[in-house]
């Protein structure tokens, strides 16, 4: 019996030693592998790969992958579905990188995360010469770049549009959708019984999008062209004031502070909202008979600004290759396949997600199916990316914090912007 107890004790000790050893082993590997990352090592290796992506809503992605698999029986691709939530997607990708796991080969990466993933050497540099980048929308290409090197191929893009009630504007004799905020407010004063404007003002990524749009549309900048924060300016103040005063005066309904995309779409479809800022996805939905009270009663236009057309914020997803994936050559081919004109076209038709190839916007056949394409292209050519910074998560949190406290009256516009400038200064390393 005595030996049993000694053995158990030994087993416990042995196990804990093994555990501690594993801990040390784990952290050591952090340091040694990094050397290979970064400056565009060759993308080699062929074989099976995976695509880590938030689930695609159309179901078309699986078809695209099936087609690829038929053509490349020895380099099969498998979809790894990540949670629906965007933050959770990033978290899973970061965890994958933290453990240097080879589970993910191709990452379907949100445009805001390129810098972070590139700077941490989690994704491999892509050879620019193997993509015909001139065919893509320039703004979309920029979102895949970090320090002028390409890290992610533009795949899907997105931009805010102004949705407006065409029927009401027509009734009031207003011919054109507003180009400036003042015009929009004028239009609202002519049409009674409606809430004027809404966007997405809940404290989440959407608020950063809306805040950046307001600032950019007033001629301001969150981060200037050299990458320095520049948000404590009169222009930025005018932009933020547009939203703050909108809430104060009732131009923006007060429940809009809890709006995300879907809540604002619902408010619009209930029929008592005249204008609102939204992504293109809502176009088809709001025109679907059923709950929507605005079928065939609305149209889209570029966002208005302070002194002319506004500057929408760019959204979308790019395709990147995980640094820790074995079959990088296959992964590169797979990305080329997904961003080819044929695939993007098929995907637009199936999923109505905005493509990154400029030519598709001018295709008459597609324009017939998606009447908003010309407006969207105009918007996209004018669109501004969110700050392309390594610590994007911290930056967007700081922006949300500042914008939310100004919108809810917790701080003045001046104070919020001064605080934000200060905060961004600490977060953005030049």
């Amino acid at each position, binding site marked *: *019996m*005595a030996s*049993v*107890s000694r053995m*158990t*004790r030994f*087993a*416990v000790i042995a*196990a*804990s030693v093994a*555990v*501690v050893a*594993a*801990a040390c082993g784990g952290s050591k590997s*952090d*340091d040694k592998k*990094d050397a290979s*990352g*970064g*400056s565009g090592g060759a993308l080699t290796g062929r074989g099976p790969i995976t695509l880590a992506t938030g689930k695609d809503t159309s179901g078309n992605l699986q078809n695209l992958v099936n087609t690829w698999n038929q053509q490349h029986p020895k380099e099969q691709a498998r979809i790894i579905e990540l949670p629906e939530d965007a*933050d959770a997607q990033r*978290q899973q990708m*970061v965890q994958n990188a933290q453990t240097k796991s080879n589970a993910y080969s191709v990452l379907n990466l949100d445009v805001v995360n390129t810098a972070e993933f*590139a*700077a*941490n*050497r989690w994704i491999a540099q892509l050879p620019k010469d193997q993509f015909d980048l001139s065919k893509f929308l320039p703004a979309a290409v920029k979102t895949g770049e*970090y*320090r002028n090197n390409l890290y992610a191929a533009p795949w899907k893009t997105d931009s805010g549009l102004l949705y407006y009630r065409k029927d009401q504007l027509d009734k009031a004799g207003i011919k054109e959708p507003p180009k400036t905020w003042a015009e929009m407010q004028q239009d609202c004063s002519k049409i009674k019984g409606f809430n004027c404007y809404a966007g997405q003002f*809940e*404290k*989440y990524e959407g608020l950063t999008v809306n805040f950046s749009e307001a600032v950019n549309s007033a001629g301001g900048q969150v981060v200037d062209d050299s990458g320095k924060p520049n948000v404590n300016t009169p222009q930025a103040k005018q932009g933020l004031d547009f939203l703050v005063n909108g809430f104060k005066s009732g131009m923006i309904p*007060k*429940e809009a*502070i*809890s*709006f995300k995309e879907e*809540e604002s779409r*619902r408010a619009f479809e209930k029929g008592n909202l005249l204008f609102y800022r939204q992504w293109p996805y809502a176009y088809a939905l709001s025109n679907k008979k059923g709950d929507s009270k605005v079928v065939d009663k609305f149209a889209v236009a570029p966002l208005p600004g302070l002194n002319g057309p506004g500057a929408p914020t760019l959204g979308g997803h790019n395709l990147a290759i995980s640094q820790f994936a074995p079959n990088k050559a296959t992964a590169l081919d797979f990305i080329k396949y997904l961003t080819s004109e044929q695939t993007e076209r098929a995907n637009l038709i199936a999923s109505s997600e905005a493509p990154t190839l400029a030519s598709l916007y001018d295709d008459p056949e597609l324009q017939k199916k998606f009447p908003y394409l010309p407006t969207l292209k105009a918007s996209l050519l004018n669109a501004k990316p969110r700050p392309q910074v*390594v*610590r994007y*998560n*911290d930056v967007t*949190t700081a922006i*949300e*914090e500042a914008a*939310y406290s100004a919108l*809810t009256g*917790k701080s003045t516009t001046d104070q919020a912007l001064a605080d934000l400038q200060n905060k961004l200064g600490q977060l953005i*390393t030049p």
Partner: protein
Amino acid sequence: MTTTTAEPGTVAPVKQKKKSDVQGSGRLAAILLSPTFLVLALVVGYPLIDALRESLYQKNQGLDANGFVVSGDKFVGLKNYTDILTGANSHAFWNAFYNTTFFTVVGVIIETILGVAMALIMHQAFRGRGFVRASILVPWAIPTAVSALLWRWVFQADGVANAIIGHQILWTTEGFHAKVAVLIADTWKTAPFVGLLVLAGLQLIPAEVYEAAKVDGAGTWYTFRKITLPLIKPVLLVAVLFRLLDVLRFFDLPFVLIGAHKDSVNTLSMLAYDEANNLRYGPAAAYATILFVYVALVAYAFVKLLGADIIGDARARKKSTPSKRAKKGSRTIREATA
């Protein structure tokens, strides 16, 4: 312990086991305990030690000339801790500390009262009790992720909560109402947990105790306070203790229901999560460690103040009805071994 007052005719507890048993018991105990310790060492012990180590380091956040993050950690001693407690962002910590404590105190009190009430109801014999039992257990059986979504739906601007009260409260915005929403959703979900544990405890009380009390003419409230409560105390304390541990580490409900970065509901776990999410593993580990220490202190105080009979040595315990049970017991044994 006050249980001795419970029942007339209680005999002092029967004393202990034979001393000669101790040697063998120690060995047996080691064998019986080792699987638990093995699992806990692997899954919790290792990450905990790892976190302690990590909390003394900071990851480099600087970029090199080519824009790459400079790799490697540097040892910073207790800087992560002092930054959290007294640094520029200490208000975030103290705010989260307050929220965590608030949710714990208010939430656990409500859950305990509701849970005991539920257990007493489930314990009664009446028609339709199967239905009531089932309904009480429903909230707890729903996965947290799903119930958080459900409550978010209920509490949205044009949701059913506002429709019922006929007044628009923007529940998910900053303010006290956000705390209320979280508390409603949390107590709804977890009171059944307390209820279930207490119900099991109630099963241990022999019916004779109540009969005796009835003969003595004790009222319902008196019976509850002087008999039921002391007898379910050990189980109730375990239930409350583990609720305390859970609420102090509160994370997913406020996160899904109200959202990240809202001062009104930010908890210590959410701060730890946020730091890790932003790749600041050192501060994240420091937050986790501080939370760990806080939870440990609360649990220690709780057990010291109230829980002598769950942790205290078996010898010290006093039972209200051992003699009766012993009599019944020997009868049972004769049956069982016959």
